């Protein structure tokens, strides 16, 4: 908990990002050193390069630390300043789109959710990477990570880390419910177990991108997908009104109407679900891997268990969500060459290892997984890699934000989902929205 105490005093930050942070450490750009503005999503330390514990010991922080380190290593080639985006992915996108649409020169680098990478590339917001550099940058990266950063056969952004969700649970609760966690579990099983032990199953089901992540994983887990032919843009074929879509709706509806639903289920984002999982009646949680580094779970770390993402059906293997962050280089920045150099440094194997250790976010490079230090720091790193290999990314379409919004709007709140009607209605709705025939 020491980390937390320091952090609270550290810095609160907002969307547009504060000029704080590294200005003090990196030193204002002197002379010719170009300053690169890197818009980051909130992570373990936000704008602080280091996290300090109760005893005053400093440990490297998240992206802010990478920025500091790479700036130092560049020997004056560039100086990176981190600026902070809002907490949730939809708002991160909204901020960036507005500023990039205004051709804002003050964005050089941005941490992009893979789900929106296609849209940004299609809009011309991202500086194209020369082919040879593409090969160089993507070397040694996990296939899934490269795929999620590719649009129209070009690498358009560089994977910084890849992410997946796993099922977190309290061992005591699973034991009490008599649930065998060594075998793959299904959503039905954990909801029943939670009901039986009067605990909760926490899932991100606020009306936001994270809810679409859940639905996408459920549909994929049943062997389906949200759409076919993502490259067709607005004419892509939506495939939610299918048996797989129905299976997904059954899970959502079951949890939504169950006593295992936490009070704020329909309002819960990543942080909110960790909070409800940490509460006395928390039982199960699906969330990204960084939960392991969350101070909220520190008090009961001995009781904390983890297994692969739950299955939608009894037979099909689960398809965990794929997430993470790609670093994109803005088309409107003033120092695009330096920005690519910086992106290469930020995503190097060494950077990714440091970042994984401090933030709990998984590397996008396969070599880092084999590092002994990594294995020691994260006892579940084998599960991470297995999950990423099995993960189902969200469709790589420029229209994902519309599809996602239409999807989570029509499935929200979870308690209102009807397996017989919701999939059909949402499919129709998404099609109408894409064709400009319906509002969002």
């Amino acid at each position, binding site marked *: 908990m020491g980390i937390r105490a320091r952090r*609270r005093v550290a810095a609160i930050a907002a*969307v547009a990002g504060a000029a704080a942070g590294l200005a003090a450490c990196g030193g204002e750009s002197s002379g010719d050193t170009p300053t690169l503005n890197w818009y980051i999503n909130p992570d373990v330390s936000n704008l602080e390069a280091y996290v300090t514990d109760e005893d005053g010991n400093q440990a490297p922080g998240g992206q802010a630390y990478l920025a500091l380190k790479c700036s130092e290593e560049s020997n004056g080639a560039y100086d990176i300043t981190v600026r902070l985006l809002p907490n949730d992915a939809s708002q991160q996108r909204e901020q960036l789109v507005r500023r990039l649409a205004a051709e*804002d020169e003050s964005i050089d680098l941005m941490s992009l959710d893979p789900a929106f990478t296609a849209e940004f590339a299609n809009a011309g917001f991202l500086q194209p990477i020369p082919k040879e550099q593409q090969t160089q940058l993507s070397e040694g990266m996990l296939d899934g990570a490269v795929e999620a950063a590719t649009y129209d056969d070009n690498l358009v952004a560089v994977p910084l880390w890849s992410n997946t969700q796993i099922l977190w649970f309290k061992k005591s609760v699973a034991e009490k419910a008599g649930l065998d966690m060594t075998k793959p579990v299904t959503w039905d099983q954990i909801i029943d177990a939670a009901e039986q032990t009067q605990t909760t199953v926490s899932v991100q089901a606020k009306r936001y991108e994270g809810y679409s992540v859940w639905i996408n994983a459920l549909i994929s887990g049943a062997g389906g997908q949200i759409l076919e032919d993502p490259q067709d843009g607005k004419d892509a074929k939506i495939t939610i009104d299918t048996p797989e879509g129905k299976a997904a709706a059954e899970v959502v509806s079951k949890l939504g109407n169950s006593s295992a639903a936490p009070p704020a289920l329909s309002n819960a984002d990543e942080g909110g679900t960790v909070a409800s999982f940490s509460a006395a009646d928390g039982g199960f949680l699906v969330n990204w891997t960084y939960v392991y580094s969350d101070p909220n779970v520190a008090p009961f770390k001995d009781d904390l268990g983890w297994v692969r993402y739950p299955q939608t059906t009894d037979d099909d293997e689960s398809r965990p969500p794929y997430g993470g962050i790609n670093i994109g280089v803005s088309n409107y920045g003033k120092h695009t060459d330096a920005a690519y150099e910086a992106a290469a440094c930020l995503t190097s194997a060494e950077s990714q290892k440091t970042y994984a250790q401090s933030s709990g976010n998984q590397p996008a490079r396969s070599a880092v997984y084999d590092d002994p230090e990594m294995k020691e720091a994260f006892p579940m790193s084998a599960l991470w890699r297995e999950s990423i290999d099995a993960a189902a990314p969200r469709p790589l379409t420029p229209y994902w934000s519309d599809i996602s919004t239409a999807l989570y709007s029509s499935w929200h709140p979870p308690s209102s989902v009807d397996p017989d009607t919701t999939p059909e209605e949402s499919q129709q709705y998404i099609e109408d929205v894409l064709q400009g025939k319906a509002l969002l």
Partner: protein
Amino acid sequence: MSPRRKSRVVWSLAAIAIGLIFAGAGLWLIDRPDLWLWLITGTVFVLTGAVGLAIGDNAPQISWASIVGAELIVLYTLTPVVYLVSLSLKGGNADVNQGGFLPHDPGFTNYETVFEFSLFQHALFNSFGISIISTSISVVLATFAAYAVARLRFRGKKLVLSVALAIAMFPVVALVGPLFDMWRAIGIYDTWIGLIIPYLSFTLPMSIWVLSAFFREIPWEMEQAAEVDGATAWQAFRKVIVPLAAPGVFTAAIITFFFAWNDFVFGISLSSTERSIPVPASLAFFTGASQFDQPIAAIAAASVVVTIPIFVIVLLFQRKIVSGLTSGAVKG
């Protein structure tokens, strides 16, 4: 019993009853430490009633109904504000998660956090700057227009008033899209001027109304009288009219400032960085110190900070604001 006496007794008893209900409900339902709030509220009402009964007919001009009413009004207006203050004093995530009205572990850490956070400092600076500049320009333009409306006969006067009225009714959100598109095209997106221009347009109607109402009440004959007495037109204007008009201008300025300080829609749509983001927009996009922090208490602290100027203005100038609001019958 005279009706006056009867009403006094009735209201005194009502106050005691309200007080007992508060205290009783508190004891019955509310956990510590919030219980104190209920007991204090109850005590105030009971005391009011007791004084009302004891004072006899010695102060017949005081209507006890209105005192009980005033207490209820203050309770109504201040409860959410006091809650924000109390929330902002909560000592940490654990305290916040415990819920309840009053802090269990009070402290000022949230204020430290907020002031260490440079975006918020920038936002305060932006908001003050933008609000003051747009208020000044708006009041000057409105003074001219209001003078014309109140004192001159000219063709199209109705048009001026109709435009003002139409703007006052205009749905602000309908504009942000086209404005965003235009501002980015001409390059004033995320700048002070990009916010000042729309604030001007939307504060002018109010200022014009407030001011033209004031100007109509000014005895303009005095100006003529002064001129007859040998003063030049400029002297007459400066010595006689300006002092009479100044309170109206000041009132218009306060109400205009409130509007600019309050604006959210333009703030979130036309700005995005510390270069121009105003306070309300910065509040909406607070995140915690890390991705694991819920920023509730920090937002509360920031909210309290930005409410302090409002509080000061209201305390100092309440009479002016009320007369301005009702004379122009406008809203900020």
